[in-house]
């Protein structure tokens, strides 16, 4: 682990500008070409404000944060719960942070929000040893 993880310690932030290039690269990796991520007209027809990023782009940013802070124990004992609250519009800057809420077991509250203050994801992580 890279930080002394006492209660109240903040993890991150991890920051990512979610532009079209990021969405295209993620879509190719995931083989997920849902038109709501590329086509404003389709997205609007479904009640969205326009094309939105894949929710798990922000989720993967949280994964990056946890890997950085928790190290190899994360991939062996990690428990992650994410709720996608609001979609992230293309061009947004997403900031992922965590707060240690318990040390035994190690538990972290998580948030990913845009630089404009739109809450995209809430969640929690735990190391279950």
């Amino acid at each position, binding site marked *: 682990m890279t930080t002394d993880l006492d209660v109240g310690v903040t993890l991150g932030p991890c920051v*990512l500008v979610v532009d079209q290039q*990021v969405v295209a690269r993620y879509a190719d990796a*995931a083989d*997920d070409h849902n038109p709501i991520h590329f086509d404003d007209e389709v997205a609007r027809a479904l009640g969205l404000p326009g094309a939105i990023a894949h929710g798990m782009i922000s989720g*993967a940013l949280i*994964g990056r944060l946890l890997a950085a802070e928790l190290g190899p124990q994360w991939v062996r004992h*990690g428990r992650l719960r994410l709720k*996608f609250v609001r979609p992230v519009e293309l061009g947004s800057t997403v900031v992922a942070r965590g707060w240690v809420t318990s040390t035994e077991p190690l538990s972290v509250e998580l948030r990913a929000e845009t630089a404009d203050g739109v809450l995209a994801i809430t969640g929690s992580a735990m190391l279950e040893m």
Partner: protein
Amino acid sequence: MTRIRQDWDQMRVGQTFGPFGYVVRPEVVESLRSAIGDEELVEVDGEAVAPAMLLTFPFLQLIEAKYEPPPGVIHAGQEFDLYAPVRVGAVLTCTGTITDMSRRRNRRYYSVASEAVDDRGVLVARSRTTAVYPEVDLRSRDY
């Protein structure tokens, strides 16, 4: 395998998916790392590994191998229980089951519980994916 058009009315709790084989290809790992700017945990115990969140890919493809989804399925929740690193080059065998279908605040939700076992027989992860099924089916429209 011929895919079935995914329709809410034909989905059932208890319906199963897989086994679905997924190779953790280096170029996919690199593409994910590049998209997210993720240079963490590149190796564990001397072996190249993928970001754990790559597991979303086979768990969604597991469903889409059977069903052709309508445009606009939206990810509402994601849970992971991680047990082992996702080795680059590993072949994951994934299975899943629909565990919940419900309507809340005029939206249709479904959840799929999945697991992935690697080619060494190691349980890599369990997952629960919750998605919102679109109220409007755009498949009959031209865009």
